[in-house]
């Protein structure tokens, strides 16, 4: 759907919603839509990311197709979110990765693995890929510390800058030039984001397999906390190495391994669960382009989680070198594609939540 068509279509659909209002108990989007008598493209960018795709409004709506009013808010909002990710992708030339998410993910992971494997072969010799390494600094005998950390930092900084630039542009647009970031609004928004409150569907859950359930919110929570635990694991490892001068691998009962393994297991279960729930869900309120983005990103997370767990399990064996190449390659693929994948959803959503919190307290309009 062309962007202009989508704005006109959401303007039409939301005028039905604003006259009805039965769904306003499900989430904040409907209340926010009611404040707007006409919907422009910036309103769409805001409302679409305020929508958390719980889909309860589709289940509850008496005007869904084939009714003449043809209201399908979750599908239209999903399409609008895909547009958001593309419109605010920086640099703009890379937005085309969003159009082919599976190929982008596969290519990035494959390239990442090849590059890491080549680096290992050049540094430690090809045999390092299948030679056991034991004791402190085992990983760094396969690939030196700086060869890991410098590219990782470079990719992270590049991605972060791209995302920040895009989000700044987005925030300017949805705020219509009026700043809406206040400490109170940020605090409210963070609370809503961390608890995934709008995946509760006002208590009904998310509409997936024919009725509301808490599955999506549960699995989404596992993914979120899993990723956070893995980030914390990496940070704690850096502390051990750089301040306490203990080189990895760390024992099973160390902070980095417990956090990393716990996070990896949560991520593996969460990503698999989300993928399955989405696959079994009613397809009518879904948008194919968003499903493609979901599948590619969840697939990447699953590969990262499973290869990380495999590396932990077999780190004392001959497979360590190869597993290290595969895991680091997958992580590289995840990081490189992050600004042009479903990864960005939470940033736009958080900004939309801040705007909403500010709007509800009369911060701006």
């Amino acid at each position, binding site marked *: 759907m062309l962007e202009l068509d989508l704005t006109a279509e959401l303007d039409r659909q939301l*005028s*039905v919603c*604003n*006259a*009805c*209002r*039965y*769904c*306003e*108990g*499900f989430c904040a989007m409907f*209340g926010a839509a*009611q404040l707007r*008598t006409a919907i422009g493209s910036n309103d769409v960018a805001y409302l679409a990311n305020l929508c958390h795709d719980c889909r*309860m*409004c589709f*289940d*509850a*709506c*008496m*005007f*869904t197709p*084939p*009714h*003449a*009013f043809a209201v399908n808010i979750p599908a239209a909002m999903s399409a609008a979110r895909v547009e958001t990710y593309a419109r605010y992708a920086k640099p703009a030339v890379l937005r085309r990765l969003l159009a082919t998410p599976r190929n982008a993910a596969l290519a990035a992971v494959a390239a990442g693995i090849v590059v890491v494997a080549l680096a290992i072969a050049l540094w430690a010799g090809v045999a390092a890929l299948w030679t056991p390494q034991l004791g402190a600094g085992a990983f760094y005998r396969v690939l030196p510390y700086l060869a890991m950390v410098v590219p990782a930092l470079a990719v992270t900084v590049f991605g972060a800058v791209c995302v920040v630039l895009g989000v700044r542009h987005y925030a300017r647009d949805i705020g219509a030039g009026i700043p809406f970031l206040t400490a109170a609004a940020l605090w409210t928004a963070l609370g809503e984001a961390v608890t995934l409150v709008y995946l509760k569907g*006002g*208590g*009904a859950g998310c509409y997936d397999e024919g*009725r509301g359930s808490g599955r999506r919110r549960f699995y989404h929570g596992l993914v979120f906390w899993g990723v956070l635990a893995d980030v914390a694991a990496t940070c704690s490892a850096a502390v051990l190495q750089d301040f306490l001068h203990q080189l990895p691998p760390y024992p099973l009962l160390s902070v980095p391994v417990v956090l990393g393994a716990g996070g990896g297991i949560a991520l593996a279960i969460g990503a698999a669960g989300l993928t399955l729930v989405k696959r079994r869900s009613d397809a009518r309120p879904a948008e194919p382009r968003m499903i493609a983005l979901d599948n590619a990103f969840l697939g990447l997370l699953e590969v990262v989680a499973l290869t990380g767990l495999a590396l932990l399990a077999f780190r004392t064996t001959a497979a360590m070198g190869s597993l290290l190449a595969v895991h680091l390659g997958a992580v590289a693929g995840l990081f490189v594609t992050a600004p042009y994948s479903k990864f960005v959803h939470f940033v736009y959503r958080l900004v939309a939540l801040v705007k909403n919190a500010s709007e509800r307290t009369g911060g701006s309009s």
Partner: protein
Amino acid sequence: MGGPLDAPVLLTSRPPGRARPREVDVVICGGGNAALCAAITARRAGASVVLLERAPQYMRGGNTRHTRDIRIAHVAPNAAATGAYPEDELFADLLRVTGGETNEPLARLTIRESTGLADWMAEQGVRWQKPLTGTLHLSRTNGFFLGGGKQLVNTYYDSALRLGVQVEYDATVRSLELDGRCITRVVFETGGAEQRLACGAVVVAAGGFEADVDWLREYWGDTASGFMIRGTPYNTGLALKAMYDAGAKRAGDPRGLHCVAVDARAPRFDGGIVTRIDAIPFGIAVNAAARRFYDEGEDLWPKRYAIWGKLIAEQDRQFAYAIFDAKTAGRFIPSAFRPERAGSVAELAVLLGLDPPALVATVAEFNAAVRPDCDVRLGALDGCGTAGLIPPKSNWAQRIDTAPFYGYPLRPGVTFTYLGVEVDAQAHVLAQSGDRFENLFAAGECMAGNILSRGYLAGFGLTIGTVFGRIAGVGAAQYARA
């Protein structure tokens, strides 16, 4: 008989040694709130239940799909409603809207039973929410269920199916076969084939007949051609007719219908709540000749909106137009369609298909009669009436003089009909001869006229449907299994 009704689950419940071979204990005709409450209750009471819903699955639920709240008496705040709403107060409200015309024992029964509904509904999985925007005046008297009526219907179907109620969609009830005062079979049509289902008891909860415009024409003449039907196109009253054919006694005024002003651009059927126009008290209403015809400011809108359907029905071609200006735009809940909008009254008339000089003259005459400097307050009776104008506008009269000018084309939109069958306190349908059918029960819109004979009390139709659905379900199960 063929098809899914041969499923063995039905046959296992046939009581051994019973004279009449039976395929199911209880047949429910209908698929909305009252029908589902009856089905769930009958199934919980141990009966095997088949529910015949005329609509396809995506349209299931009758006009319950368009509801959003239920009126319940309560002595203290509960999960559904705030404050207290004593039974006597609800009864007084009912007397007020019906002009005292109600079957008091049935009304008292409904109100008493309503006190337990918030809990019972929650047990079925219904969730309560805060009153919707613009409905704060109902927060004490009415409970709002999360997501509105279709969500309620979905929850009840889910509950009924889990309990083992057999649901047949696209099943049109044609007639009831009788043996004396006892229904022996329900004859219905599905997939082009007629089926005759032998049963122990029957609950009819299939709504009114408002979607059968020919039937409406019997009482309304050609005016009926101008009616929009706000709800499901499947409420054509076939099950009601089947009860009449079996000898059931009529209740309610056949001309009685709830009818409001709706957007003329809406689809003929099923526009629901989103085509209702609340603009009338904010400006003026004119007919196809661009003349005003009734006091737009007679009383607060919630007390008056339900008379406007019939007022418009009395106008030429059943059309009217709500005209207002920039001063009041955005002051009321919008409809699904944007109003027509123009820079002058004459241009607006062109957009609406009215005679421009006539509309300009009407607006000028109205503006001249508006009392200057009156403090117009839209939320209350402000006494800002016109002077020397016929008909007057008694409140909220302010000049229509600020561009842009807006207009909605209006038609009468029928919400529901009042005609039904007479029932007793056990939901038994009464026969014309005065005795009652042994095993025929009615609930919901097709018997609500016993209690709500006329007028409107927000959310009370669902109260009647839920209370009598449950009574009918218990009665039918007990009869069928006795």
